């Protein structure tokens, strides 16, 4: 393991700053653009999208609805109308193709806050994390559905930071910023990647949506990996990397199939050896040596 001053140092040297931050920049552009589109209406009166991430209407024709909310509403005993169901179906299909937790890193506004907390945490050298297991989010996911069933209301929405943030900016905040501050401080001081990586039931739900999703990060060139560990340092879900990078001898293929990979592409950015690429989930069988063949025949160079 080499000692680089920051993750991606080697990659920046070898590929240039732009290529070593390409997916990060695209991701920020995506997050901010989506926010901006929602704000275009209330601020400038240009209505491209109205509503918020819970449910929206784009160009007065395309409904999009959060399927997690629909599930909670169903658990609370309400059958939604056709518009919301259609919107939910569209979202399910999109994330089935693009990877469920792609929502987390490319759309969700809370990611901006938790990424900032993580960056600051690294900068300040804050160590020592609570050993909260990552499956806690699935317990919380189940708990939110039980809550909906027991209370007969979409109870999680009362404190859900994701919709608090998005709705807060578009419709007015109230005290919602307190919840966001809590998430920020939790991630900064209490738990490394605490909210998005351990607790958030929205992310847990989307991970289930993306269990069989098409778009995946592949370590096609993993034999080139020089164990610099930069990808581990930036990855919000480190546990998804190990099987792929170290599992070749055990017959594990080069595709990151874990549904908790958020497709953020940061590992692609910081790898000076170009081990990672975006690709499809197929061609994951790995008779020794075929990675390179696959790479040669299928890599689109992204």
């Amino acid at each position, binding site marked *: 393991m080499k000692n680089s001053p920051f993750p991606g140092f080697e990659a920046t040297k070898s590929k240039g700053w732009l290529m070593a931050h390409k997916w990060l920049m695209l991701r920020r552009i995506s997050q901010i653009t989506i926010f901006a589109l929602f704000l275009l*209406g209330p601020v400038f009166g240009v*209505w491209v999208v*109205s*509503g*918020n991430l*819970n*449910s*929206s*209407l784009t160009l007065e024709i395309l*409904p999009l*609805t*959060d399927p997690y*909310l*629909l599930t909670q*509403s169903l658990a*609370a*005993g*309400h*059958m*939604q*109308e056709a*518009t*919301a169901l259609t*919107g939910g179906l569209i979202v399910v299909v999109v994330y089935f193709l693009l990877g469920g937790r792609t929502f987390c890193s490319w759309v969700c506004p809370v990611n901006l806050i938790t990424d900032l907390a993580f960056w600051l945490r690294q900068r300040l050298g804050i160590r020592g994390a609570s*050993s*909260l*297991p990552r*499956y*806690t989010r699935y*317990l*919380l996911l189940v*708990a*939110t559905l*039980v*809550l*909906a069933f*027991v*209370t*007969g*209301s*979409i*109870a*999680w*929405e*009362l*404190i859900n930071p994701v*919709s*608090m943030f998005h*709705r*807060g900016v*578009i*419709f*007015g*905040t*109230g*005290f*919602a910023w*307190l*919840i966001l501050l809590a998430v920020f401080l939790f991630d900064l001081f209490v738990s490394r990647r605490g909210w998005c990586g351990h607790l958030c039931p929205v992310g847990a739900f989307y991970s289930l949506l993306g269990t069989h999703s098409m778009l995946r990060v592949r370590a096609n060139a993993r034999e080139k990996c020089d164990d610099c560990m930069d990808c581990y340092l930036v990855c919000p879900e480190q546990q998804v990397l190990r099987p792929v990078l170290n599992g070749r001898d055990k017959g594990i293929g080069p595709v990151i199939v874990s549904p908790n990979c958020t497709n953020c592409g940061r590992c692609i950015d910081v790898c000076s050896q170009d081990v990672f690429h975006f690709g499809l989930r197929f061609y994951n069988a790995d008779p020794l040596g075929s990675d390179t063949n696959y790479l040669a025949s299928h890599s689109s160079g992204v």
Partner: protein
Amino acid sequence: MPIKASKSGVPSRQAESRRRFLLDLSRSATGVTLLSLGVGLYSRQSASMPAEAIRPPGALEEAEFASACIRCGLCVRACPFDTLDLARLGDGITTGTPYFTARDVPCEMCDDVPCVQACPSGALDPELKQIDEARMGLAVLVDQENCLNFRGLRCDVCYRVCPAINQAITLKHIPNTRSGKHAKFIPTVHADACTGCGKCEYSCVLEEAAIKVLPLHLARGELGKHYRWGWKEKEAAGSSLVTPDGEHRYNLPSGKTYDFEGEGLLESSQ
């Protein structure tokens, strides 16, 4: 839970990892349960709406509404008069759900009910096509002591602004006992026509409105289920159900008769 020791007296790796797993599981399960309890109790509390917060037209009953509304704000956007708003955290109304305050901006009762049309979830009932059938609440003349019409003046503003004038609010005449010769015109709300739009409350000229739109559960009384109106039952049955009607008899002082046409007690002509 005691840790099984291997022969050397040190816990085996397997036992150690099982212990660790159980500890992690109980820790996270406890956290999740506590959080859920908090949210559950909070949801109970936030289910009680302040009386001045009125839901948009067609809103399901409050308990159902909390399961149906997905808090997207499309109804707010559809409202051409910016009447609706989404509740914010700390407002005392379920966060993210739509409401309006009649005294600030009342509902203008659009013919095409755009807010209901925009609702993707069914929290605003799509069956509501006629705005006149909306029942957002019910206007109640809560302060009969300060209402100008009750004091004998001809304010009439609530009556005049009512979109269902002469149906939802009528003026009932009663004698003005203060002046002894005038009438008071009492604004009287009729629940069969009042939509709860709040225009009366908005327009009331007092510092604090004397007429207010209240949620139906606060505004309305309810008859006991067993209660029957005697005269209706009698009409349906054709005769009294309790005791048969006898001819009414008066015990008049001797030498008097009674005239039913208005003359009253008379000296007997005999």
